[in-house]
């Protein structure tokens, strides 16, 4: 049974939201054949989703025309320095410097080459450079918190940044988001477009967070968590994390033109 979300103006407690999360998780476990890979759009523990999820089934469509292609981005669109979020201002940002790298693959396991990856995140104190972020944690004048890069010929992206902090939000009382980096990804087709969030291993906030838990399949959820990789870590400089991203499968045979930039 799914817990009924509170419509009371008084915010729910963490215990109430956790109970809702656990009720949905246990009803998923009870269905043996189900393997979900994506978040539920209708996921009431995330209160903002209540009026913002479609209630009717998605309409099946065979991709046509532009849907079989993705927009092209290239050297003209961005500067390679935009992949380093620690050098956007005059001074060094505060926090744990780190490299985040990995591969963007399509659903057939092929690298997505020379394609745009965009990221944005909070600073080390858990504060975004955004006027709507009211969290009374310090802004860092040396950390704007957004970056972009193109994948290389092997589908590899690589950013240098600062480990983001967790931050409070108003989903319920004493709600905190686990530390995460937002990723925006394109494939070789329009149908592969996605936005997601990368998390860090062992975060104690995982069981409490309705956005992370909206992916009800435990294996699918675990795929959102990066791996600490000492091979990526650089001596006397920064730690390293690895996170690969798999897009949905293409409907069109990938051609040479897809690898041009």
């Amino acid at each position, binding site marked *: 049974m799914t817990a009924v979300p509170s419509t009371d103006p008084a915010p729910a407690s963490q215990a109430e939201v956790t109970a809702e999360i656990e009720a949905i998780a246990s009803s998923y476990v009870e269905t043996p054949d189900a393997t*979900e*890979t*994506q*978040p*539920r*759009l209708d*996921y009431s523990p*995330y209160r903002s*989703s209540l*009026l*913002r*999820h*479609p*209630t*009717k089934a*998605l*309409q*099946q*469509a*065979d991709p046509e*025309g*532009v*849907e079989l*292609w*993705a*927009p*092209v981005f290239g*050297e*003209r*669109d*961005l500067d390679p320095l935009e992949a380093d979020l620690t050098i956007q201002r005059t001074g060094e940002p505060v926090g744990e410097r780190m490299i985040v790298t990995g591969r963007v693959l399509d*659903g057939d396991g092929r690298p997505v080459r020379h394609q*745009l990856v*965009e990221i*944005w995140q909070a600073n080390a104190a858990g504060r*975004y*450079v*955004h006027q*709507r972020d009211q969290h009374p944690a310090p802004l860092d004048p040396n950390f*704007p*918190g957004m970056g*972009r890069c193109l994948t290389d010929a092997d589908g590899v992206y690589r950013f240098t940044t600062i480990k983001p902090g967790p931050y409070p939000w108003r989903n319920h009382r004493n709600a905190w988001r686990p530390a995460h980096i*937002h990723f*925006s990804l394109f494939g070789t087709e*329009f*149908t592969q477009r*996605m*936005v*997601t*969030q990368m998390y860090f291993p062992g975060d104690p906030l995982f069981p409490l967070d309705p*956005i*992370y838990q*909206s992916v009800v399949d435990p294996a*699918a959820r675990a*795929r*959102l968590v990066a791996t600490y990789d000492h091979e990526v870590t650089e001596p006397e400089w920064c730690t390293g994390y690895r996170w690969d991203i*798999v897009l*949905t499968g*293409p*409907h069109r045979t990938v051609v040479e033109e897809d690898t041009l930039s």
Partner: protein
Amino acid sequence: MTPTAGQTIGPFFGFALPFPRDTELVPPGTPGAIRLHGRVLDGHGDPVPDALLELWQADPAGQVVRRQGSLRRDGYTFTGWGRAATDRDGHYAFSTLLPGAPFFAVTVFARGLLNRLFTRAYLPGASDGFLEGVDVDRRSTLLTTEDETGLVFDVHLQGDRETVFLSYPRHQS
């Protein structure tokens, strides 16, 4: 391979994803330029002020454009792609050209929306096999309408006039 899960775009993309002239596939005032605009609304019909729409379309000759330059517009190169954040009234607007194809491809992101949604904004009067397969009473949610500046396309995330959103064969739930 199993696709990675999507997650909501959240409330704080506004400092990161928008870029100068992101909504201008062509500069306003360009011969043939139209405004494609509308509102993003929730299940109560209230505006969604923190949504992001992306537009991807063929050129006026119906060709798929394969040119870079969307993120740094030079004012001359038509790339076929743009991005528009909604304002406080949930309104968005693109300046673009009419595609030589029946529809614009549209991606919708928003705070509160846990994964992206795909839809099509068809030109007024357009018809094709896909549209004919949609319930008659919902078909109009996929059709743009004309106004004095161009075309109007509202996105209803939920409710009586909920927009028809798409799933493609290789998508998984």
